[in-house]
Each structure stands twice: as C-alpha cells, then as structure tokens.
C-alpha cells in the first residue's frame, strides 16, 4: 500500500485551511449574510426600561452573530428624550441607532427629517433578512410610526396601553365586579375605600404633566375622543373635555389618597403595591414590578382589565409607543439596520411579551400559545393586552410641543384639584397653549 505523497498532503492542508471560509460563504449565499459588516462598531442608545435592560443582557448575542461591536447606552426615559434631541440638533449625533418615544418625539424628529426612511432598507434584500418579516408588524403600530408625509423613519418597537390594575383580594372581600364604565368605577372605588385602614378605592397620577395621560384616557371615552381636531385646532375646552376634567377631579381629589396631587407613577405604584389602593389606571409596563414577590405585597393577587368605557359611542384605551430609528447623519446605516433587525426580531419580541417587559409591535408573539402558557404572568394579563390592542388610540396629540401641552393642561388639571373650576381652567389653559400650537404648526 502506497503512503500519502507530499503533494497530496499539501493539497489536503490547503483544503482544510480554506474550508471554514468556503463554508461561511456558502452559508451566506444560501441564506442571509449577517456577518457582512463584521469588524464595524456602532453606537446604540435606548431608554432605561425592561426592554432596554433586555437588550443590554443579550448584547453579546448580536456581536457574536454579526461580528459588529456595539456601544450600548441605556439612559433614563426623560433624560434620554432630551439627550437625543440635543444631539440631533447638533447635526452630529453620537449614535447610529436610537429609541424614540413616538408619543413625544415622533413629529419633532419627522419634521426635522433627522432619521432615515427605513423603507429603502426594508426593500433591499441584501440588507434585510428574509425572516425579519415586516408584515408581522401590526398595522396599527406601523401607522403609528409613519410620519404624515408617508416616511417610515423608525421601526415600531413596542406599544404601551393604559389598562386597569385592580386588587383582587379587596374585590373578593367586598364581592364586587370589575367596573366596565368610568361612572361604575367611581361607585366601586367609593365602596372599596376604607380610610381608617388607609385603603383607598383608587390611585392615579396627580402630578402636573404626568396627569394629562389619565385625563386623556377619560377623554378617549367621549364622542370627541381627541385633543386636536381634523384641522389641527385645539379642542381641550369643549363639553367633552370638561367632562373628562371633572371625572379626573373626582377620581383624584375624592377617591384617591390625600396628597395624590403630587403623585407620579412611582408613588401610585408604591401605593398599589402596598395594598393601599383598590384600582389603578396606568401603563402596561407596571405588571412586572407588581408581580414581583420580593417587592410587592399584592403579587399574585393583581387583576388586569381593559380601561372602563366612557359615555361616548366608542371604547378606547390610551396608546403610547416607541420605535427605533437611524439618524440620517449616521455613516453606518447598514450595521445600524442589522442591529434593529436583531433587536426587534421575532424571538426578542416574544421574550418581551412573555417577561412582561413590554408589548411587542409584532403580531406573532401573541399567537405563540406555548410560550405564553409558560410565562409566570397570568393569562388575564395577556388577554387584557390583546383586548387593549384592539381599542387603542393615541393618548397624546401628535404635535411638536407635546411636552409643553402636557405642562399647560397638566397645570390646569392640578389647579382643579385645589378647587378651581374645571371649565374655567381648561379654557384658560387652551387659550394659553393655542398660540404655541399655532406657531409650531406654522413652522411645520
């Protein structure tokens, strides 16, 4: 038997050395080339939230998949909004991917054309993985992220609905049903209150600015529903707006703990967690801390329901949302788009849902019965999400000076808690904000 020749040995060695590259290339040709931008580095900035922390924990997975290095920055929500606007305005943002609060910054970012239109990236098969499946995104979320001129300058990431949290133990003890209208909720709150034990029927945001989203939740239940009309005129002093203001005042002044005038979501959360409030209407993101046995006295006894209905013909809950965008000024749009595809891919969005880190913008996670069944959150929570998605409507007007709107209307609402007349306060606030909105619309 003849031994191996030197030539054969060299050929075999060369083949062995070339094999991984050939296999990788073959794989890339057969599927999507995730490693196309390997060796590059991008900067990503997201808000401090369970979603942001999730991305932080799994960052290495993306780096391993693509070979792209990621500098990930996680900043508290309010500071994050300010930071990105200041950086955008400088013309040279330090980031290649950013999270955007659509309910706050969408119009401002769109008007200034700070972000790139991702439709071109979506249409490029060499840049968009086949399994990214943009059709999986709910139509409502895509519409919510789309600018008025049709540009899609952020990829929808997640939604936040206002829902009703209730303390099951208190309801069971009083043998009461979960209310389905705002009026019934007031009656229920009265019956559940026990001030001698410092237990109150309701808790909600009273702090200026933060309180507007509660008022808008009531307004969404009226025939008027919105805060600006089709001509983009302010309609915040109408009879429906006044009804919402009076409802707000009754809930906060008469049915909530003393001092609620200064409560933001964190004080509300603490009060509800300690079992001192029977009902709380706020964003979906609080389910995780409320069900945390180490921090919450009501863990395992929290009920979830869609917000009650108002006097109007439609039933709505307030919708807020976030998207991920790529600055027009970024020189690394390709790697940045890869990051967005990974971050908002099907697997991660499913994880967000089952860990109650947020409501995904995709539809497929809601259809994954197996994963939902394994989640430690009750089925009622997921049912509430699904029902809320069907009735969601923007909880804040889509205008540039939305923070100033919240400030002016929020101050008026706070003044009503101190005894001021609701109609007069809303009229004054509307007159104060109207020229600000008009100037902003002219500049648009």
């Amino acid at each position, binding site marked *: 038997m003849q031994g191996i020749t030197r030539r054969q040995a060299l050929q075999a060695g060369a083949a062995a050395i070339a094999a991984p590259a050939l296999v990788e290339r073959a794989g890339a040709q057969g599927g999507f080339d995730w490693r196309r931008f390997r060796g590059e580095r991008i900067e990503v900035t997201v808000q401090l939230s369970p979603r942001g922390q999730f991305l932080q924990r799994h960052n290495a997975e993306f780096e391993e998949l693509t070979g792209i290095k990621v500098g990930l920055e996680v900043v508290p929500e309010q500071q994050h909004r*300010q930071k990105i606007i200041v950086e955008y305005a400088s013309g040279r943002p330090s980031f290649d991917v950013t999270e955007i609060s659509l309910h706050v910054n969408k119009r401002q970012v769109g*008007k200034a054309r700070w972000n790139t239109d991702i439709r071109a990236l979506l249409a490029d098969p060499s840049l968009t993985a086949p399994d990214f499946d943009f059709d999986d995104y709910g139509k409502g979320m895509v519409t919510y992220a789309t600018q008025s001129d049709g540009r899609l300058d952020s990829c929808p990431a997640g939604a936040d609905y206002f829902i009703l949290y209730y303390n099951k133990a208190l309801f069971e003890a009083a043998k009461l049903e979960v209310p389905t209208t705002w009026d019934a909720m007031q009656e229920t709150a009265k019956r559940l209150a026990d001030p001698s034990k410092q237990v109150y029927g309701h808790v909600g945001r009273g702090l200026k600015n933060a309180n507007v989203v509660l008022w808008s939740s009531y307004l969404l239940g009226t025939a008027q529903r919105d805060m600006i009309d089709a001509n983009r005129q302010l309609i915040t002093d109408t009879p429906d707006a006044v009804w919402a203001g009076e409802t707000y005042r009754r809930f906060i002044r008469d049915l909530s*703990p*003393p001092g609620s*005038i*200064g409560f933001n979501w964190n004080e509300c959360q603490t009060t509800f967690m300690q079992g001192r409030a029977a009902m709380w209407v706020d964003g979906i993101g609080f389910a995780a801390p409320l069900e945390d046995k180490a921090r919450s006295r009501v863990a395992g006894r929290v009920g979830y329901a869609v917000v009650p209905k108002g006097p109007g013909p439609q039933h709505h809950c307030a919708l807020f949302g976030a998207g991920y965008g790529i600055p027009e000024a970024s020189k690394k749009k390709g790697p940045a788009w890869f990051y967005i595809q990974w971050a908002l891919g099907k697997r991660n969005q499913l994880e967000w849902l089952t860990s109650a880190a947020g409501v995904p913008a995709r539809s497929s996670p809601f259809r994954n019965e197996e994963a939902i069944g394994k989640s430690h959150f009750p089925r009622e929570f997921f049912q509430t999400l699904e029902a809320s998605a069907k009735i969601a409507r923007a909880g804040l007007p889509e205008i*540039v000076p939305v923070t100033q709107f919240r*400030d002016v209307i929020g101050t008026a609402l*706070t003044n009503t808690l101190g005894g001021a007349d609701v109609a007069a306060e809303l009229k004054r606030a509307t007159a104060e904000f109207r020229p600000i909105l008009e100037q902003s619309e002219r500049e648009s």
Partner: protein
Amino acid sequence: MPQDAVTLARPAGAAQAARRRNYARRYAWFVVPAACVVIAVILFPWAFTLYVSGFDWHLGSERRWVGLDNYVRLFADARFGWAMLRTLFYTALAVVAPMLLGLAAALCFHRRFPLRGLARTVFILPMMATPVAVALVWTMMFHPQLGVLNWLLTQVGLPPSMWVYSADTVIPTLVIVEVWHWTPLVMLLILGGLASLPQDPYEAAKIDGASAWQAFRHVTLPLLAPFIVVALIIRSIDALKAFDTIYVITQGGPGQASETINIFLYLQAFAFYNVGYASAVVVVFFAIIMALAALLLWTRQRVRVT
C-alpha cells in the same frame, strides 16, 4: 551731583523696566493654556448664550432673530415672575435657617465635651451625601401614607402632614431637606473661624465682668463676622442655584407651587426646547447672581474694615 545721580539712575531704572518687560514677554506663552481653557469653558459659552438669547429658536426649527424680544417677553411672563418670587422665598428660608443652626452647632462643637470628634463627624455626614440620592430618600420619607415622617407624627399624637404633596407646604418642606443637607457646611466654616479667634479679647472681657451673652454679642460675633459673611455668600449662591433636590422630589409641583427659576429654566430649555427664551432666562439669572455676590462681597469688605 544730584543731577548726575538722577542721570545715572534713569538708565538703571529703564533697564530694570526693560528686564521686567522681557520677563513678561518671555513667559507670556505660559498663560496661553489657561487662557484657552477660560475662553473655551467660560467666555465662549457666555458669549454664545448671549447671542442665542436674541433668537426665537426651538430645537429642530429655523432660528429667527428677534433682538431683545425674549427679554421683553420674559418680564411680561407671569410664570417667570412667580418663579422669581418662589426662588427668593426659598432662598431666604434656605439661607437663614442653616445660618442660625450652623452658628449654634459651631458654638456647641467648639466647646470641649466627651466624644466631640465623633459628634462632629456624625454632624457633617449629610454634607457627604449625593444630592440626588438624598432627594430620593426624602421623597420616600415624605410619602403621605407610607412615609416614616407621618408615622412619627402620628406616634406623638400629631396629625399627618402633606409635606411636598401640598402646594401650601411644599417650599418649607423642601427647605427642610436643604437645611439637613447644608447646615454642616455652615457649621464647618464658622467652626474654622471660631478656632482662629484670639483669646485676649475674652480675657479682657472677663476682667471687665462681661457675662457669657455679652462676650458672645460684643466679642465673638464681631470677630466671627467675616466668616459668617463668607458662609452667607456661599449659602446664598447655593440656595439660588438649587435644582437637583427640587427636581427629583417635586419636579416643580404640585402644579407650579415649587417651580423656581432653575426649574423654569430647565423646562424651557430641555422640555420645551425653547433655546432662545431659555438663554434669556440664563442671562437675567446670571445678572441677579452676580449682583447678589457683589453685594455680599461689598458687605464682607465693609465688615473687614470695621
């Protein structure tokens, strides 16, 4: 001869002056790094702020030159006026209370007693804490239903308070945090002054039969006056600039009940992105602080002369 001396002296003086000039010229470049830093971090931002205050400029929109309109608008803005009044009220309380308590504490810690060192250390601990962390802890303590302060009040038979959750009590309550945090600084400044006082005037006062109060009133206070004025200047400027504590605890609320100039400025600049208007607020506020500092420095000078 005198004429000669003068004649001779002149060239010598001129040479010295020339040497001095040469010396200054030779080392002038050493000033450049410091001058660059001052220009970059003080002068340029100031000049730019002044320039921007002449524009109607919202971030993301076009700038429009409006001259002094922002200043005219500012003085007609009732919200700015109220913010100014609240700032003055807050500053007055946040200066007077720590000054009195700090002086009392300094007099107390100046005396010798067992474990004085430990007591001094414990007293100055609040000053070491980060303002934001302090504010978060106080926020929890102020909670009307779950806070420890209302629990303490009810334990001694007093009714619970709304603390920062009521427009009526919010500013005095915020001042409590400020007093707790910054009284140790005043105490340290005055204690340093007390340690440096000469003993002779006290001996003279004792020989003259002065009581303890008379010695304090006519010896200690006049000698301490320069130190008290320094503490007053530092405290006044700090109180005027107070932002972090107020922002973390109340964000200017309830309503606008604790909205001081700094909160107003922050909202205009970073919540409403009204950069031109916010710059005008900065200019006016800077002028106020400078005027106050000048007044206090002038007072200090007068006290020293006296």
